[in-house]
């Protein structure tokens, strides 16, 4: 059987223009005629990536931020052309990112179903045939002839997803961005993925959530800095990614300018060690005093990928950081509770007491947890069910 997707030596180059405005204007163009040549830098978002996907396969695309996953998806959905290489697609590609594209606030629900369906690539006859099903799925039959602007955002999302869910593409691309949205939306998306998977469609799954990838896919592709690092069975690739990720789970941050507070945070370094459920986070904060100040203490907040605070670590309850213009490094060890896979961000606070903040640097360093705290769990954790997974057991069995 011919592969449903053949990716041959795909590369994508971007020219990064420093100090580039979001869009050009004539004035900029004119003024750049007189100024010296702007510094442009070549950046290869993808470099010589090749792989094949067979019909019915579910393949995970794994990689750290900036590995080229999004660029690959953009090229696959033909939004942007590759710089080199060739891709052969044998079938219709749809991406769940396209949900709701082309919705118009002035059109009614009924009209939007047709418009959106058509933009997503459905034929008129196809939309007609599935119309009742779509309306049923969305649960908006009462408002079919009401302009979309009077819908609640939840209703709009339901309608959008209902259309996308009835698209029946040969290849479905699922991006991790999907993980946001309300609980119902997430549940529906996950349910849809499983049905699509069972129906033998080809799936490309892009995610940071290793548990979800492990559950949905049998094979995976590991991207790193635009290059295809490895391709193989899912368990091997996930292992390789995690090994690489653990090594990389140490980050450093420095402020752009010292700031004008009496004491400021000069540097934060972070390191994550261990395995679930015994992760230890070590944070080294370097504090420099610029002028006389009271004794201070330090605290860390840890929030999830969408910015919801999850943990607060207060290593020392009494102010202890004395004035020191040479700078001092406070090393803190935080024992993390079992947490679900996500990217967590650390904020650092220094102050004399609760109402007397000296310096509060928000979400300066991040670490990633990719392993599920519940051993053997092979389906993704939902953000809506909580982030900390305490040890639990049945005691009457």
């Amino acid at each position, binding site marked *: 059987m011919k592969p449903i997707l053949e990716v041959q030596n795909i590369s994508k180059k971007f020219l990064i223009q420093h100090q580039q405005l979001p869009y*050009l204007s004539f*004035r900029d163009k004119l003024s750049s005629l007189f100024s010296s040549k702007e510094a442009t830098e070549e950046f290869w978002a993808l470099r010589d990536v090749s792989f094949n996907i067979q019909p019915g396969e579910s393949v995970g695309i794994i990689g750290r931020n900036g590995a080229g996953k999004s660029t690959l998806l953009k090229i696959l959905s033909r939004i942007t052309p590759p710089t080199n290489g060739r891709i052969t697609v044998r079938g219709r590609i749809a991406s769940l990112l*396209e949900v709701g594209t082309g919705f118009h606030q002035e059109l009614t629900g009924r*009209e939007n179903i047709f418009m959106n369906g058509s933009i997503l690539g459905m034929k008129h006859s196809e939309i007609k045939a599935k119309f009742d099903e779509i309306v049923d799925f969305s649960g908006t039959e009462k408002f079919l002839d009401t302009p979309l602007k009077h819908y609640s955002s939840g209703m709009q999302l339901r309608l959008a997803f209902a259309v996308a869910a009835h698209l029946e593409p040969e290849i479905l691309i699922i991006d991790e961005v999907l993980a946001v949205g309300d609980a119902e939306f997430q549940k529906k998306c996950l349910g849809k993925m499983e049905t699509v998977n069972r129906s033998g469609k080809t799936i490309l799954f892009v995610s940071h959530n290793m548990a979800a990838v492990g559950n949905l896919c049998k094979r995976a592709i590991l991207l790193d800095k635009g290059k295809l690092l490895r391709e193989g069975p899912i368990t091997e690739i996930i292992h390789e990614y995690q090994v690489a990720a653990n090594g990389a789970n140490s980050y450093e941050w420095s402020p752009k300018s010292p700031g004008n507070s009496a004491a400021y945070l000069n540097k934060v370094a972070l390191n994550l060690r261990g395995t679930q459920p015994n992760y230890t986070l070590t944070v080294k904060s370097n504090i420099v005093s610029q002028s006389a100040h009271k004794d201070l203490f330090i605290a860390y907040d840890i929030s999830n990928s969408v910015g919801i605070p999850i943990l607060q670590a207060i290593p020392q309850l009494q102010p202890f950081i004395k004035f020191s213009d040479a700078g001092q490094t406070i090393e803190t060890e935080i024992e993390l509770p079992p947490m679900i896979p996500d990217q967590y961000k650390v904020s650092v606070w220094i102050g004399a007491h609760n109402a007397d903040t000296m310096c509060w640097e928000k979400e300066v360093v991040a670490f990633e947890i990719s392993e599920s705290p519940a051993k053997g769990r092979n389906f993704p954790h939902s953000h809506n069910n909580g982030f900390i997974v305490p040890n639990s057991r049945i005691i009457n069995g």
Partner: protein
Amino acid sequence: MNEPYTETIIEPANRLSFNFKELWSYRELFYFFTWRDIKVKYKQTVLGVFWVMLQPLFMMLIFTFFFGQRLGVKTEGIPYPVFAFSGLILWNFFSSSVTNAGNSMVLNAPIIKKIYFPRLIIPLSSVLASLVDLVVALMLFILFLFFYPVTINALELVIFWPLAFALSLVGAVGLGCWLAALMIKYRDFRFVVSFVMQVAFFLTPIVYPVSRGSLSVLEYILALNPMYAAITLFRIPMTTDVVDPILIAISICSSFLSLLLGLNYFRKTELFFADLA
């Protein structure tokens, strides 16, 4: 689905011409975009599509009063109201389609960034939506001709009206696509368009005859306007005045040149719209 799959090749941007076959395969989307543009335009209006008739009608009445009666503008061989009405109908189509097509790519940027389809559909459907307006306005004009004492040459009408519509369409598509692509890159053109359209209104024989029969250099320059030929040809069945074939030819050439250049510029920038928008 039992349909056989379609094979798509994704390659670097080096296409030399428009893929008209692909454009044809997207005809349903083309229809939906046009349909949406028409629908949205008249949402929450009481009179709806009647505005298309009322606009040229009132403008014709105003210009007839000031230009025709007060200033006594000479429109040889054709009554002033017929002269103004015919010019206004075609000009309204041209200016609204060029303006809408020009803005269309920027307005639809959220869609362009997420989904692939031949980008040309967007400005073309804007022009097509304006064409529907033209048809509606034309019906009022035909009704008007029945009641207004003017002799019409039926044979000339069958020949020159379709020609006039085709020429306006060619000019509108060419300029519209060119502007749509330019506007994605330089938002400045949003301001340029409305200004140029206002000036062009008075440089086109819409409410007064621009040419005076003396073939000066200025007249040749004015004939570069694609709408010069379209409007002049449109009036032939109702007038006894003779038209100048050289000026018409210049205008027709300019129409087709703008179509070629416009489409070519659009094609060249099309692939990078998603990165620019």
